[in-house]
């Protein structure tokens, strides 16, 4: 995949990192302001897609990226289930009820960034999952068209 013109490349260099950071901010702020794992995850995927579209890459580099991102996707969903069943796991050591999706952390004061028990954690894991899933979808289509072009040569 060829990259785009130098104008796009330079602007992407400046702005991609900031978009990524904005996605992270939306993700961790999900219980206080509009946003959350789904919104932040899509924005993070958008920053990576911007990088790939602007700079381009050869097929091997893209395949490596795809493997890594589908690994992160699997990790995100695994951590989500692990956190959701946290109360069951901890009940062997501590005095918790054995309930799936029990919020086992303290709730804190509503409105602070460290509050709402495990909701910020779940937001982060959903963000990982959604970002990696959308980026993998995009890469699957790009790699497909790359291979077609290679065959033509």
């Amino acid at each position: 995949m060829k990259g785009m013109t130098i104008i796009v490349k330079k602007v992407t260099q400046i702005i991609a990192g900031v978009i990524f950071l904005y996605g992270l901010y939306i993700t961790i702020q999900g219980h206080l302001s509009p946003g959350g794992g789904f919104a932040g995850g899509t924005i993070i995927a958008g920053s990576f897609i911007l990088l790939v579209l602007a700079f381009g890459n050869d097929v091997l580099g893209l395949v490596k990226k795809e493997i890594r991102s589908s690994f992160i996707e699997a990790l995100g969903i695994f951590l989500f289930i692990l956190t959701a069943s946290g109360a069951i796991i901890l009940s062997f050591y501590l005095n918790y009820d054995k309930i799936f999706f029990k919020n086992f952390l303290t709730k804190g004061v509503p409105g602070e960034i460290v509050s709402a028990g495990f909701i910020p954690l779940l937001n982060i894991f959903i963000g990982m999952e959604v970002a990696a899933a959308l980026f993998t979808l995009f890469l699957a289509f790009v790699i497909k068209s790359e291979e077609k072009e290679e065959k033509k040569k």
Partner: protein
Amino acid sequence: MEILLIVLFILMIAGAIYALEAKDLLSAVVSYGIVGFGLVICFLLLQAPDLAIVQIVVETITLIIMIAVVLNTTREEIKDKVPQSMIVYAVLGLIFMFGFIYFFILSLNGLSEFGKHATRMATEYIQGGVKGSGSINLVTGVVLDYRGYDTLGEITILFTAVIGVLTVLRSRGRKKE
């Protein structure tokens, strides 16, 4: 407010009709974007900022993927003659559509009017939401606390769909035939 929504809806319907009738597939895909981005503005007007953030990025990604597909396959719309049997399908479709509208208008009586939502279920979530989940964004509270099972199922579907796309599109393993 309601007038603004009506104007936006008419614009979206026009975009949808053009997307279905365009001769060039690329312009069809691009005008499909009208519907998605109009939806973003509707969400903002209807006080759903969470959805607007998600929808605007998702719409962009969908458009990128669709344009990649169209550019790599073909842009030409099918031009062959409409066969006789198609007319039967069209008539059946029209009958189905009228039936659909008829039942919808019947069921409108059961709905409360626009803007006067009977908040039987919502009251519970709005009043007990902050205390119950600890999150002041009630949408996040509902998604991750009250309805955590739904979210788990949803990300499972996402995971499965990605695996499906990879399985369908991957030809790396097949190359050595």
